[in-house]
C-alpha cells in the first residue's frame, strides 16, 4: 500500500475529538464547545463523525489511496470479482470499482457542498428581502410557493434534457427546489426579530436599513441555517444519486455513486457488489450527515431538542 499522506492528520483529528482527557474536564453546564464534546460521547454520534471524516479524507486524498484512473476502460478484464489488482472488482467496461467508489466520494461531496452553499446564499438573500420589505414579501413568497409546487426530480430531468448533463446543471437542478425552504426559514426568523426592542431601538437611533439587517437581524439566522444546511447537504447527495441512477444526472463516464448503481443494475445477479459498494457508502454518508444535523439542531436550538 502506498504512503498515505493525509491519513495521520485525519486520525489525529478523530483521536482529538474522542480523547477521554478532554471529555472528563467538560462540565455539563459549560458553553457550546463543551456541550459539543459531551454529545460526541454518545456512540452513534461518534461513529457518524468518524464515517463522515473518512469520506472527506478519502475524497481529498483519492489519488493517493492506491486508485487507478476511474474512467480507464480495460475490455480485457470485464466484470471481474475481488482480486489483488482490482480490490473491489471491475464493471462491465473493465473499470476499477474501488477507484470509482473513491472518486465518487468527490462528486458527492462537491454536489452536497455546492448545492448547500448556493441554496443557503440565495435563500438568505431572498429571505431577508421577503422578511423585511413587506411589499416584496407577497410577490416573493408566491413565487416560492410556485417553485415548491414543481416536483424536484421532474425539474431536474427537464433542465438536464434542455442543457445536457453536466455538474453545473445538476447543481442548479438540486439547488432550485431547496431555495424556497431556506427562504421560508430566513423569512420567519427576520419577521420575529423585526419587533424585538433592540431592533426598534436601532431604528430610532437612525441605523440605516442595510446595517440594521446585517448587524442586528441576519446573525439570528445563522444557527437555524447551519442546521438546515446539513439537511440540504444530505438531500443534495441523495438527489444527485437518484438523478444519475435515472440517467438524468451526470454524464455516465463520471464516477458518481448514482451512475455506478445505474450501470450495475443489469449485472446485479452476476456481481451484486457493483450496486452494493456504492450503495452502502451512500447510505452510510447520508445517515452520518443526518445524525450530525440532529446533534447540531439539539445544541443550537434547545427548544427543538428531544427531551432526554
Amino acid at each position, binding site marked *: 500500500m502506498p504512503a498515505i499522506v493525509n491519513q495521520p492528520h485525519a486520525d489525529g483529528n478523530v483521536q482529538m475529538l474522542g480523547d477521554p482527557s478532554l471529555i472528563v474536564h467538560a462540565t455539563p453546564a459549560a458553553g457550546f464547545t463543551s456541550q459539543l464534546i459531551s454529545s460526541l460521547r454518545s456512540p452513534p454520534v461518534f461513529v457518524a463523525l468518524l464515517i463522515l471524516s473518512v469520506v472527506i479524507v478519502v475524497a481529498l486524498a483519492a489519488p493517493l489511496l492506491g486508485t487507478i484512473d476511474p474512467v480507464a476502460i480495460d475490455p480485457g478484464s470485464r466484470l471481474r470479482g475481488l482480486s489483488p489488482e482490482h480490490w473491489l472488482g471491475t464493471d462491465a467496461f473493465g473499470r476499477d470499482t474501488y477507484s470509482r467508489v473513491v472518486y465518487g466520494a468527490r462528486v458527492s461531496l462537491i454536489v452536497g457542498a455546492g448545492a448547500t452553499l448556493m441554496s443557503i446564499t440565495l435563500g438568505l438573500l431572498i429571505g431577508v428581502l421577503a422578511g423585511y420589505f413587506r411589499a416584496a414579501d407577497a410577490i416573493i413568497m408566491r413565487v416560492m410557493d410556485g417553485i415548491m409546487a414543481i416536483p424536484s426530480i421532474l425539474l431536474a430531468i427537464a433542465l438536464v434534457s434542455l442543457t445536457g448533463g453536466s455538474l453545473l446543471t445538476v447543481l442548479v437542478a438540486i439547488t432550485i427546489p431547496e431555495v424556497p425552504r431556506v427562504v421560508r426559514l430566513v423569512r420567519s426568523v427576520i419577521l420575529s426579530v423585526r419587533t424585538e426592542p433592540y431592533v426598534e431601538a436601532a431604528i430610532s*437611533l437612525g441605523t440605516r436599513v442595510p*446595517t440594521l439587517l446585517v448587524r442586528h437581524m441576519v446573525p439570528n439566522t445563522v444557527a437555524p441555517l447551519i442546521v438546515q444546511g446539513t439537511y440540504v447537504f444530505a438531500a443534495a447527495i441523495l438527489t444527485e444519486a437518484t438523478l444519475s441512477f435515472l440517467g438524468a444526472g451526470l454524464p455516465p463516464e463520471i464516477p458518481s455513486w448514482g451512475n455506478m448503481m445505474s450501470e450495475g443494475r443489469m449485472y446485479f445477479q452476476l456481481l451484486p457488489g457493483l450496486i452494493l459498494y456504492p450503495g452502502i457508502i451512500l447510505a452510510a454518508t447520508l445517515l452520518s450527515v443526518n445524525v450530525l444535523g440532529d446533534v447540531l439542531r439539539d445544541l443550537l436550538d434547545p427548544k427543538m431538542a428531544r427531551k432526554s
Partner: protein
Amino acid sequence: MKIDNLAVQVVGDPTGRQVLENISFEISSGETLCVVGESGSGKSVTSLAIMGLLPAGSLKPSRGRILVDGEDILAASPARLRELRATRMAMIFQEPMTALNPVETVGEQIDEVLRIHSKLSKTARRQKVLAMLESVHMPDVERIYNSYPHQLSGGQRQRVVISIALILEPRILIADEPTTALDVTTQKQILLLIRELQKKHNTAVLFITHDFGVVAEIADRIVVMNRGHLVEVGTREDILARPREAYTRMLVSSVPSLIPQKREAPVTDIVLEVQSLSKNYSRKRLFGSGGSVAAAQNVNLTLRKGEIVGIVGESGSGKSTVARCIVRLQDPTSGAVLVKGEDIARVSGPQLRPKRQRVQIVFQDPYRSLNPRMRVGDSIIEGLVNFGTKREAALKKARELLGLVGLSDDSMQRYPHQFSGGQRQRICIARALALDPDILVADEAVSALDVSVQAQVLKLLGEIRDRTGIAVLFITHDLRVAAQICDTILVMQHGSIVEAGPAAEVLTSPRREYTRTLIDAAPGRGWDFQNFGPLISGAA
C-alpha cells in the same frame, strides 16, 4: 401547615449549592401569609416545594419537612401526593390563560377535579360546579360553564382557576402572583374574592407576590425572602412599620408613595407638541376591508423642556401606541407630532432619519432591548456613529454616559448577558442619551424591574432630567411610579385621554370617575411605605 428547616438544592451540582436554605414558617387556617421578595429570592420554589411540584431532575429538597395537618409532604408517595394536592392544598398561578386548557370548556375543567376526587353523580357534579361559579361571582353561570377560556376576560379566567382550586375546599390555597398579569381594577376584585372565599371556608392562604401594595392590603403575616434565605417573619404591622432587618427596611422604603411630591410646573419652552394624534389598526380580511380599530383617538399633549409627563392607563388603553407614534416606530393615521415646531408625523425615509436623533426611547424589557451579540460599548455608540461621529470621539462619549448612569468604564467591553436587569436598563438609558435627544420616551421602562432597582432607576431618570434638561414622556400602568416621578399626568382609557393635569391634582383630587376608580383600585393606598406608617390623609 408548617414548614420546618426546608432546603432545596440543584440536582447533580457537585458544589451542593442550595437554592433554598433554612426556610421555616407556619400558617394556620383562616390566615393569609404573604411571601414577598425580589426576583430570584426563592418564593416560587418554596411554593412548588409545598405542592410537591419541584421539577424532577433539576431541583430536589435536601433537608427539612413540610407538614400539612401533621403529614410530611416530602415523604409522601406520588399517589398520596396527588390526592393531597386536590383535597388539602391547591394552587393558582400568575397567568390564567396558560393555566387553563384552551380546547376544553371551563365547566368540564372544573368538573374534572370532582370526577377524579369525588364519587358524585354527573348531575350532582354539575350542580356543584355551577354553585362554585356562582360563588366566584360569575354572571350567567350556565353560559360560562359552556365557554372556552379564550371567550372570557383575564379576570374571569382567574376566577375559573380559583374555582378549580377551591371546589374541593382545600385547607391551604397557594397563590403565586395571581394578580400580577391583571389590571389594577380587576386585581382589586380578585383580591376581594380570595378574601371572601377564605372567610367562608376558613382556608389558609399562602400568597406569593412582589407587590407591597397587595401585601399591605391583604396580609395577616408576612415572610420576607432574599436569595433563598428567610429574612424576616412577622405580622403585617411588624414588617411594614417596624422592620428589624436592614434588607426589609430597604425593600419597604423603596415602594414609591402614591402621594406625589409638590413640584413647580416648569415654565420652559415646549419641545414636543402632539396635536389630535390618531392611530387606527385596520383588520385584514381576505376580501375587502374588515373595518378598523382605533388604538388612539385625538390625543393632544405638550411636553416642555425638563418636564416629565406621565401617561397612565390600563392595558389596551393606547398609551404605548401613542409612545410608538411619537418615536415613529409606527405611522400615525392622522394628527401632527411637532418636535420643536417641526412636524415629524408625515415625513419618512431619508427626511425622517436625521429627525430621529431628537426623540429616543427606552423599552420595558431590559433583556430584549440590547443586541445580545454586541458589546455594550458598540451598542451605545451605534447612534453616534450613524450620524457621523468618529469612533474614538463616540467611545469617549460612551464612557462619560456610562459614568452618568452609574456604570464603570470596563462595562464597554462586556456583553449584555453579563449585566443584571437594572444595569441593562441603565445601559439602554445611556444609549438613548448618546444622541443628546430633546425627548426621552420611557415605555414602561421600570415595570419589569424589582422594586429596589426600580427606585434606583427612577432616581437616575430624575437626576438626568435635572442635569440635562431633557423632557421625558413616561408611560406606565403603575400609579405609584407615576406619582413618584411625573410632573404632569395624563390618564388614558380606550384610546383617548380622559384626564390631564399636574400630578398632585390628578392623583389627589381627580375630576373623572375613571381616574378615581383607578386610584381606588391601587393596592395598599392607605399605607405610606417610605415613612413606615399608615397614610395620614391630611398630609396630602
